[in-house]
């Protein structure tokens, strides 16, 4: 069922929110053993919310836009009273005393939060294999990764264990798992959705956004969570348009930029290239115009990202020291006890990838290296952003494959960190420039889902969603 179908069914008393919540929880109980999308379920919270929606329906009162919709929340987002682990041992029993703004807004819109989903530890990863709680499997092919870091959220939606989910995206972590699992994933403009309550990884790159089965459902979730939040100083006071009404805006004549550096990239699997070209052909027949463009610094994006994101992470993760929450190591008493407590807590609590990124980030910020690495990367970031601005003078949207290949096998890339980083080559640039982007399922390669990505200028999510909505109608059934 779609979000609107659920809301209508409850309003018209053909279904109850409680019934749907129970059904969802039941499905998770019997179906999530293999997939492992969820880390924590919040049955009481879900049923209490469902009961509230049913009470409104019984009185004949108008229902909020996401009434009764079962949603999953990535475990880096705080949920008051519900364990929030960030996929890490260091927060294994941490229970936040507050809700993330995005979560609070979903619930204010009537959504039923059924549980917290698995993710790479502190959102660092592209496969969900870095979770301290074991990986999530791709529901489309259980020997494959669901992508990451929002792998649990993507798998939950793809497996029908939630109707929609919140994920987060710093280098591609909403769009890449959406592509691997065959669903829709939206990266909003930086500042469009509040980051309050999101455990910070890289503050200038983190974004909260929806994963859903359709452009319309993604639009409805975005509508609920977007907008200025006084609790997030980087959230923009830009008006939130009606994304749902905007789905029907015409797409004829839209100019779609095809970056030659992207489509010429040697790492793209043939099946991925074919599926993406087919999507563009369909859009061309529908009246869109393809325009070749250049993004000359695109290949530098991964290097820039791994300097800036790790630098910011080294600062953000300094707070995990065993003092106020989470794991605390108990060293021997003595003059060094406190220092030992910090270091041992972090050594025991963090996985290898998190340590790697903290160390790299510490290094690029350290005296003597700051200018060569950190400042340099910020300058190249500025150039990447300028490349996009220049391109958007000639086109309305930019198209790329979301990922160079479809989902890889569990364990296939975990031995070589750099190889895994390179899988984000097409998603990272939008994060660096703060631009919105969407991944849409566009066919299959080797029997696995393929995602096509569209990037838009800042605050043009409406244009992305409208294109996605039109494309869904053109696309052959996969």
């Amino acid at each position, binding site marked *: 069922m779609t979000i609107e179908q659920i809301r209508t069914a409850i309003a018209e008393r053909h279904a109850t929110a409680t019934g749907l919540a129970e059904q969802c929880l039941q499905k998770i109980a019997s179906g999530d053993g293999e997939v492992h999308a969820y880390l924590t379920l919040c049955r009481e919270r879900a049923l209490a919310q469902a009961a509230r929606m049913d009470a409104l329906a019984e009185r004949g009162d108008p229902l909020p836009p996401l009434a009764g919709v079962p949603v999953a929340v990535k475990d880096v987002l705080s949920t008051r009273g519900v364990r929030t682990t960030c996929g890490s041992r260091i927060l294994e*029993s*941490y*229970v936040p*005393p*507050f809700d993330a703004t995005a979560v609070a807004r979903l619930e204010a819109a009537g959504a039923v939060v059924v549980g917290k989903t698995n993710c790479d530890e502190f959102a660092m990863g592209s496969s969900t294999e870095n979770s301290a709680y074991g990986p999530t499997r791709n529901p489309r092919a259980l020997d494959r990764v669901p992508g990451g870091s929002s792998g649990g959220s993507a798998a939950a939606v793809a497996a029908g264990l939630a109707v929609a989910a919140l994920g987060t995206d710093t280098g591609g972590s909403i769009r890449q798992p959406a592509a691997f699992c065959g669903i829709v994933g939206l990266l909003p403009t*930086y*500042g469009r959705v509040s980051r309050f309550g999101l455990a910070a990884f890289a*503050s*200038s790159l983190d974004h909260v956004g929806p994963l859903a089965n359709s452009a319309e459902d993604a639009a409805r979730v975005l509508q609920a969570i977007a907008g200025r939040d*006084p609790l997030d*100083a*980087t*959230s*923009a*006071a*830009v008006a939130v348009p009606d994304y749902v009404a905007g789905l029907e805006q015409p797409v004829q004549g839209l100019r779609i930029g095809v970056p030659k550096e992207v489509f010429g990239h040697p790492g793209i699997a043939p099946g991925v290239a074919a599926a993406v070209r087919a999507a563009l052909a369909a859009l061309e027949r529908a009246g869109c115009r393809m325009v070749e463009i250049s993004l000359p610094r695109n290949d*530098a994006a991964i*290097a820039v990202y*791994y*300097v800036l994101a790790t630098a910011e992470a080294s600062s953000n993760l300094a707070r995990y*020291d065993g003092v*106020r*929450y*989470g*794991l*605390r190591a108990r*060293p021997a*008493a003595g*003059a060094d*006890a*406190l220092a030992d*407590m*910090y*270091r041992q807590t972090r*050594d025991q609590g*963090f996985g*290898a990838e998190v*340590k790697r990124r*903290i*160390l*790299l980030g*510490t*290094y690029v910020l*350290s005296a003597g290296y700051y200018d*060569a690495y950190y*400042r*340099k*990367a*910020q*300058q*190249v*970031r500025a*150039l990447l*952003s300028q490349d996009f601005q220049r391109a958007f003078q000639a086109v309305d949207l930019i198209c790329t494959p979301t990922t160079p290949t479809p989902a890889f096998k569990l364990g296939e890339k975990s031995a070589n*960190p*750099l190889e895994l*980083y390179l899988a984000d080559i097409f998603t990272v640039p939008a994060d*660096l420039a*703060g631009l919105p982007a969407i991944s849409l399922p566009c066919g299959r390669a080797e029997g696995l889902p393929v995602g096509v990505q569209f990037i838009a200028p*800042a605050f043009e999510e409406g244009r992305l969603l409208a294109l996605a909505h039109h494309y869904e109608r053109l696309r052959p059934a996969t």
Partner: protein
Amino acid sequence: MNLAAIAQLAQLDLTPAEAEAMQRDLQAILDYIAQLQQIETSGVEPMAQALVADTPLRADTVQPWFSAEEALANAPAQRDGMFEVPKILG
């Protein structure tokens, strides 16, 4: 890279085995990142974050928030309404 010095700054303890693997991995990543040196950036203003349109400050007024008790609820050790840590002086 002086891994031991960086680990000290990052407040991380690495076992010798961890340190060896880490040194290798980090060197490979740094070798990859070196490509940035080839890009001409003179006169380019560093970009710290995406320019966010209009981010007004809020009024500095006290709002209800969670209590000290709630803040201490996850404390590994607490005493008299304070977070307790190993002694460092005397």
